[in-house]
């Protein structure tokens, strides 16, 4: 019993050390990628970043939230990834009966507000993929903000089914 406890304790310590090592590997310039799909830079808190396993081999979509805890407005102005030739910020606009996806220059992250990238609204799109990401993998994604600068985070790849479940959760 005691031995089990010691082993469990050692495992926990090892896990913590590993987490710290992983986190510090991505830290730099004031940016921190604390866990999968999350990161902080300056006053910005990026959470719940997910890349959806694409059904088309040509492009993939990323959803996330950015909370601005500071007093200064910021804007998300770019997205890139080593798996894609280019990244774009997009918006879905519905007029009457039809919806069209339009590129946008920036997505506002006002002071003390949260910007949400989600289905049917804003999203980040990766195009010209050089490899198709699959569920369970993580993909390095760099977000560029007008004031806070750049932050790179590991974004988990999920299925649309998993995305639905996480959206319908509490």
């Amino acid at each position, binding site marked *: 019993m005691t031995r089990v406890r010691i082993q469990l304790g050692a495992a926990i310590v090892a896990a913590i050390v590993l987490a710290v090592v992983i986190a510090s590997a991505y830290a730099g310039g004031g940016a921190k990628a604390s866990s999968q799909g999350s990161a902080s830079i300056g006053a910005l808190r990026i959470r719940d970043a997910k890349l959806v396993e694409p059904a088309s081999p040509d492009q993939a979509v990323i959803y996330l939230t950015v909370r601005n805890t500071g007093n200064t407005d910021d804007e998300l102005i770019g997205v890139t990834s080593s798996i894609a030739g280019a990244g*774009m910020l997009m918006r879905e606009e519905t007029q*009457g*009966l039809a919806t*069209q*996806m339009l590129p946008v220059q920036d997505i506002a992250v006002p002071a003390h507000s949260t910007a949400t990238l989600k289905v049917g609204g804003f999203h980040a799109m990766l195009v*010209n993929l050089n490899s198709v990401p699959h569920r369970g993998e993580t993909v390095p994604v760099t977000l560029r903000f007008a004031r806070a600068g750049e932050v790179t985070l590991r974004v988990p790849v999920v299925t*649309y089914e998993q995305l*639905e479940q996480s959206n319908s959760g509490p």
Partner: protein
Amino acid sequence: MRMLSGLRWGTSRTGRRLAVGLTIAALAVFAAACGASKASTSAPEGAPSSGAVTLHGAFPTAPVPKPNLTLTDTSGQPFNLVQQTQGKITLVYFGYTHCPDVCPATMAELGTIMKQLPSDVARQIAVVFITTDPARDTPQVIREWLDHFSTSFIGLTGTEAQIAQAQQAVGLPPAQKEADGNGGYGVNHAAFVLAYTRDNLAHVVYPEGVTINDYKADLIQLARKDVGALPPSAPRAGATTTH
């Protein structure tokens, strides 16, 4: 609330209010409208499987007829939308495979719903994807894309003229290509899934954001209660009033 504009979606013939708005600015209103527009109606006496019907979708002012068009399916064969879905509850979505956001999310949701529905209900439902981007969406491209969601989904393409005709028939504007600045382009897609009942009319449509449980509840009713078998003059979910 902003009213739908366009072909059959304008002012109702019966003067009933249309309880839905479809602009991005009206999204907040939209959720409320969907909630407020739940319709209850009873089948006339003697109708098969009669009973009250309560639906969660949004209601066009007048039902949208199923386009009587022959397009091309994913095996390259002609497919007549009316004849080959006759007798089925038919969910029709206009979209394109290079759409990363709403189109795959919609098809994925329908895939999940079809897996979760009781088998007697799922058997009565056909899901049809019609491309708004026939230039890139060949039968093979559509098949590979649809198979991510369900191998039983029907995928249709056609000439630009045929697709334009299909879009016009349901009140959608023709596809407009919008360059994305990286060598690709986006085209418009429908803001909703059309749900055709057995009378080949869509009395109810489902915008992005309708939950899986609401979809399932509606489809079970549409399949089992024979909503589409009501005579056109009967009061029905498609012409609800707001209170």
